[in-house]
């Protein structure tokens, strides 16, 4: 069995080379390498993940943060199947943070399935092997004559049998079996993997049990709110603390001097109010008067506004990009050829907030130099590191409990709320739960960066794309782009067209940005796949044909080698087939649009069918989605759920925006941020294209294509091209 460092290092190279802009990957690989080392050395004991009880029930530890991706169900399913127990025997328990035992523990980049598929199968299969060895020893028979079923070892098809529970104490004395003796099941032997499995927390969720970070209570716990400057980086000159301290339930109120550098992840400046209940802290806040100093960071104020950014971008777009990402061929002569038909357009999209339904919060208890944290962070290891830094204590003095999160979407890759809770707990010498209000959450996010693109494409006389030029105007300082604001050299159609140029220019930004579900991809798919649709339109061709033709090309070494074009072509063909794309009828306010995108190791193509009424109200009636995430869907229920959610999420991104005005965020609660509701949800047809590739994740790949599929469908229905999101800017809304 090949399990190995190389395997992981391959993902490592991919994660870096593929340009995934997940914060974690910015960290040195040492974050992930200890796992690889421990594992390759054979030191990752299955006992760390599995507890088999005398009554033959099995506790399987879930290692990663659960943020709604279903990982607490799907990763234990992998172990349970290879261990060969029934799912009804299994109880899932959440592991605490300990990366020396569990390997990398994080939720991001749709990486849980690809990173854990082999290791966790090995954990389960090793457990099964140990049971067989123990039984064979007890019986004095050859292991090869023993089989397993539903948590029992059977001798020669069942004339003797022992439960795992009966063998457990003996197994504990065995050495780890030789890696070469471990074999995985064949897919045909799976009885848990690949079966619709309802989430392990569903009983607790549907009965309202305390389960989420916000529900955590610790004896003697106080609650805190932290009022921060609406303008990022503002510091406190003065606050009416004496008045606040007198208010009902308030135990303390104090200024956090903090660090005004918003990209420096220590604690941010603000005023903390600590009270017996959160509501008292929040109510006291209404009387809080803070004199903010926003002069510390000069670029904050008036020029940090959406309107000014738009003006700056409009100036930069027609110019040559300041920095090159990838260029080959001869773009200028290709576009200048008299026989070339040039299509040209500008695209733009706004800042977005993550808006997880559970606002940021964390409980912390600092006592005698030790810190205990209860958090829903997607990167709890990073949270611990930052808390250690901020408090000047050692990481080994911090215990982190990972608590179910009410949504992640990349927001909880950052950990400032973890640091805040730790900081306030130390200050008031009591356990403290810091909870942000929805307004805090909207105004202190790490936003999906806005961006602007100028595109030109050349078509030859046969309507083939011969040249593609793309200039991204994004945020950054000089050459360094802001988080999740850069593009990579593998962006479609790089390497698929004879003459190509991709470059960027930057505008300074004080607001902080960060990864949001399918970072980069959620914006670039809209731009690239919409423009491709216009190019096909100009050529009088079916966009499906144009895309398939490009995917069959290879120039200058081709596209990103980790994304074989035939996999994208495969899902495109299949979605066309399933949606009846070739027989579609458009016009008269009805239309279908198609788009495809590959990211986070997955490949997805989608078709949307919309109607648009005379007031430009769009109804998305139906969506088709085909994803290729390899050879095995671990939990079909959770996999479909990710696609269903991605379709709704992407549909919402046609409507929502975060605007900046004088350095502050304008939208501060859901009424100004119209996320989709039940009546707007289309009928969904979801399938998976099974291919001979190692299984990969689904948290992200199904989101990017739905956005251009919808806007392309609106074009088909109305002849109006949506080049700027949100589409409300062009007078469109969702019915």
């Amino acid at each position, binding site marked *: 069995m090949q399990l190995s460092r190389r395997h992981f290092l391959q993902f490592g190279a991919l994660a870096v080379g593929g340009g995934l802009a997940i914060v974690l990957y910015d960290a040195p690989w040492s974050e992930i390498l200890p796992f690889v080392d421990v594992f390759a050395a054979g030191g990752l004991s299955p006992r760390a993940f599995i507890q088999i009880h005398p009554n033959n029930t099995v506790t399987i530890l879930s290692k990663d943060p659960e943020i*709604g991706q279903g990982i607490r169900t799907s990763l234990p399913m992998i172990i349970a199947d290879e261990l060969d127990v029934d799912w009804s025997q299994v109880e899932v328990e959440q592991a605490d943070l300990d990366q020396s035992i569990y390997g990398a523990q994080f939720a991001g980049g749709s990486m849980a399935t690809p990173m854990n598929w082999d290791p966790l199968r090995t954990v389960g299969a090793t457990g099964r092997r140990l049971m067989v060895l123990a039984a064979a020893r007890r019986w004095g028979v050859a292991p090869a004559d023993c089989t397993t079923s539903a948590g029992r070892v059977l001798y020669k098809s069942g004339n003797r049998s022992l439960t795992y529970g009966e063998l457990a104490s003996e197994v504990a004395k065995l050495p780890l079996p030789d890696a070469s003796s471990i074999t995985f099941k064949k897919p045909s032997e799976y009885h848990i993997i690949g079966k619709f499995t*309802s989430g392990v927390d569903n009983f607790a969720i549907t009965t309202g*049990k305390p389960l*989420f970070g916000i529900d955590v209570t610790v004896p003697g716990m106080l609650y805190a709110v932290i009022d921060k400057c609406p303008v990022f980086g503002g510091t406190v000159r003065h606050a009416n603390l004496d008045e606040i301290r007198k208010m009902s339930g308030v135990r303390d109120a104090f200024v956090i001097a903090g660090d005004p550098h918003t990209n420096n992840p220590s604690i941010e400046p603000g005023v903390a109010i600590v009270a017996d*209940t959160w*509501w008292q802290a929040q*109510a006291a806040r209404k009387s809080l008067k803070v004199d903010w100093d926003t002069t510390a960071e000069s670029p904050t104020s008036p020029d940090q506004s959406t309107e000014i950014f738009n003006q700056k971008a409009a100036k930069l777009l027609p110019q040559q990009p300041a920095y090159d990402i990838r260029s080959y061929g001869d773009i200028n002569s290709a576009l200048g050829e008299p026989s070339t038909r040039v299509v040209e357009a500008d695209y733009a999209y706004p800042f977005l907030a993550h808006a997880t339904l559970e606002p940021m919060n964390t409980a912390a208890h600092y006592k005698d130099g030790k810190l205990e944290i209860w958090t829903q962070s997607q990167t709890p290891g990073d949270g611990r590191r930052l808390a250690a830094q901020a408090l000047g204590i050692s990481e080994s003095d911090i215990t982190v409990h990972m608590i179910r999160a009410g949504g992640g979407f990349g927001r909880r890759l950052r950990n400032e709320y973890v640091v805040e809770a730790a900081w306030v707990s130390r200050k008031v010498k009591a356990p403290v739960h810091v909870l942000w209000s929805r307004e805090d959450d909207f105004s202190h996010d790490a936003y999906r960066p806005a961006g602007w693109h100028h595109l030109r494409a050349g078509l030859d006389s046969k309507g083939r794309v011969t040249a593609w030029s793309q200039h991204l105007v994004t945020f950054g300082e000089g050459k360094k782009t802001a988080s999740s604001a850069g593009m990579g050299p593998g962006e479609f159609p790089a390497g698929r067209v004879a003459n190509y140029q991709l470059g960027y220019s930057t505008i300074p930004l004080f607001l902080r940005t960060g990864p949001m579900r399918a970072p980069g991809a959620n914006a670039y798919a809209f731009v690239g796949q919409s423009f491709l649709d216009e190019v096909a339109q100009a050529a009088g061709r079916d966009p499906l044909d144009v895309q398939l033709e490009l995917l069959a090309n290879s120039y200058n070494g081709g596209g990103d080698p980790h994304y074989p074009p035939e996999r994208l072509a495969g899902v495109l063909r299949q979605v066309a087939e399933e949606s009846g794309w070739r027989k579609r009828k458009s016009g008269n306010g009805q239309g279908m649009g198609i788009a495809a995108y590959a990211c986070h190791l997955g490949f997805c193509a989608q078709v949307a069918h919309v109607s648009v009424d005379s007031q430009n109200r769009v109804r998305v009636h139906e969506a088709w989605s085909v994803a290729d995430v390899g050879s095995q869907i671990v939990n079909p229920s959770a996999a479909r759920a990710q696609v*269903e959610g991605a379709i709704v999420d992407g549909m919402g991104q046609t409507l929502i925006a975060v605007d900046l005005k004088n350095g502050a965020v304008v939208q501060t*609660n*859901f009424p100004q941020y119209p996320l989709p509701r039940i009546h707007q949800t289309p009928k969904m047809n979801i399938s998976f294209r099974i291919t001979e590739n190692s299984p990969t994740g689904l948290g992200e790949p199904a989101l990017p294509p739905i956005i251009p599929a919808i806007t392309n469908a609106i074009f088909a229905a109305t002849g109006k091209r949506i080049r700027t999101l949100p589409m409300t800017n062009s007078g469109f809304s969702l019915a």
Partner: protein
Amino acid sequence: MSLSLKINGQPVQVDVSPDTPLLWVLREHLDLKGPKFGCGVGSCGACTVIMNGNAMRSCITPVIAAVNMEVTTIEGLSEDGNHPLQVAWRELDVPQCGYCQAGQIMSAAALLQHTPRPTDEQINDAMNGNLCRCGTYVRIRAAIHKAADQANTAHSG
């Protein structure tokens, strides 16, 4: 101020300021963590409870308005967690993150009390105040239909 409430069939006394939102009385004084905080302005439905048969956003309902009312939270929806909606929710694996779901179920329960066999349109009207950031809406709709079918079969059979 001491107030008498009736929550999930039980009379309880709380000592709070009368303008405290019912949500925070439930969560912080009565330790009922089922109703969730999502927005505090009545626009997400995570805090939904049933008051005298109607779905209410407890984050914008002052506790004083709950005096002399029958308040039901997700914790009190059924004895054993087997209300037809709770069962359907699990069978169809509706939750993703799960944070909105207590509120979704309570809105759906109020709907089924008044309208045992809701149409899609009636589901839209009753449920569009409940935001699901994870986008579980197709399953929410399917689960409501399923629960309605089961409840009606049970009653007639």
